[in-house]
């Protein structure tokens, strides 16, 4: 129902309504997935819960496939996206991005039956990725540059790995975290990580409506606080594993 006038500050709205609705992608382990009883879990889910706690409201996780993240926000279905969203300039024309809250490296994952040692062996192969993601946009451009092979976008990360495991795809590019998690899980037999993809690290941001400066400010501070308080590292350890989480500051530039 119509709860708030359209131009009230969203931050106020959220606090007033008592719920924070986050768009989260749930087929993107370890960032978003489901446990045995099909409840949402993962890095992004916890991140949303933390944000809600900071705001003093309860979190509501709205599952959105990758291509539906922005439409879900634009149609007012969610307040904030905590959905591993790359902060591209093209997208920033439409939505407002916070500072990065995570950074992915991408890896090339291949089917075992396919000969492949470096990322460049993808040339001429059938490759795919999740429609609407950073790596999909990169990979499609790459395939077009090579001028051979074909690119297939699937609607969900799971469909990509299903297709890869079935042998419908020769290779895919996905974040290292997702790749490792999927290879380890044993859910997708017959796949392996081949190489890192030579992409600029995929900085991902929280996002909300472009004109919600109050909320964007709040999100920026929240991300900063997560790192400062060590919660960022804690979550990394919980969901990704041992090691150092990526540095979110880019040397040599302000933001």
């Amino acid at each position, binding site marked *: 129902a119509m709860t708030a006038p359209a131009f009230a500050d969203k931050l106020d709205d959220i606090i007033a309504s008592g719920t924070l609705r986050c768009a989260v992608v749930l087929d993107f382990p370890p960032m978003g997935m*489901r446990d045995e009883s099909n409840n949402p879990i993962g890095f992004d889910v916890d991140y949303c819960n933390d944000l809600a706690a900071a705001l003093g409201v309860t979190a509501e996780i709205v599952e959105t*496939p990758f291509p539906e993240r922005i439409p879900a926000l634009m149609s007012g279905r969610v307040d904030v996206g905590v959905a591993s969203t790359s902060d591209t300039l093209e997208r920033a024309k439409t939505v407002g991005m916070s500072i990065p809250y995570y950074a992915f490296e991408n890896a090339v994952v291949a089917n075992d039956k396919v000969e492949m040692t470096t990322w460049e062996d993808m040339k001429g192969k059938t490759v795919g990725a999740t429609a609407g993601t950073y790596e999909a946009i990169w990979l499609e451009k790459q395939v077009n540059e090579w001028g051979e092979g074909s690119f297939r976008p699937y609607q969900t990360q799971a469909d990509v790995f299903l297709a890869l495991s079935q042998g419908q795809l020769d290779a895919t590019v996905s974040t290292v975290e997702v790749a490792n998690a999927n290879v380890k899980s044993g859910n997708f037999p017959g796949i392996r990580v081949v190489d890192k993809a030579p992409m600029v690290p995929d900085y991902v941001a929280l996002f909300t409506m472009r004109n919600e400066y109050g909320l964007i400010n709040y999100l920026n501070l929240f991300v900063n606080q997560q790192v400062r308080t060590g919660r960022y590292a804690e979550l990394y350890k919980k969901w990704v594993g041992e090691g150092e989480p990526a540095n979110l500051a880019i040397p040599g530039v302000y933001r």
Partner: protein
Amino acid sequence: MFDTALTAADFVFLAKGAGVTIIVTLISVLAGTILGILFGVFRYQVGAIWAAPLTFVLDIFRSIPLLIQLVLANAFIGTILQIRISGFTVACIVLSMYTAAFCSEIVRGGIEAVPATTRRAARSLGMTWGQDMREIVLPLATRVALPSWIGLALGVMKDSALVYVVQVTELLKSTQILITRLQEPLLLLLICGAFYFVISFPLARFGGYLEKRWSND
């Protein structure tokens, strides 16, 4: 035959999805049918020319993919009008209009199948337009329209599989979620297909039976 990791909880989860499918279908078919009857009667009553704007609008719902209707309605209501409503509501609104568009055709066809002379006879007995509609046209048109209407309702149930684009977790989406976790696509898809089949098949048969029975007299 299948060695599966599927748990009872997962079946509950699937059943919930099926429940959503059924609820969305029921709401949309109900609302769509009421609207469809209103539109159909209106179109019949005012004639092709005056009904043209309505006919045009309804035709749009039959001429563009439901997926696009859902995306557009979602974007329009949320992004442009900035009204906060749930995906479930959007799904029901779009599916209702979609149902109404087809239903109004069925209704109009049903009314047209009632011979004008029979209606004249009713009016000659002093019955009002409303009485004629209720006592004569409705029962007679229903016989013509019901089999098609059953087909429409089942079609809406099957098409409701597309409401996943507005974040409604219905049966097929639930299945996909389980596939994501369990990676048993074939088994899960078969369960999902079987569910649709089990609901659709008997009703479709029933529709066929009615059609046969009523076309004989």
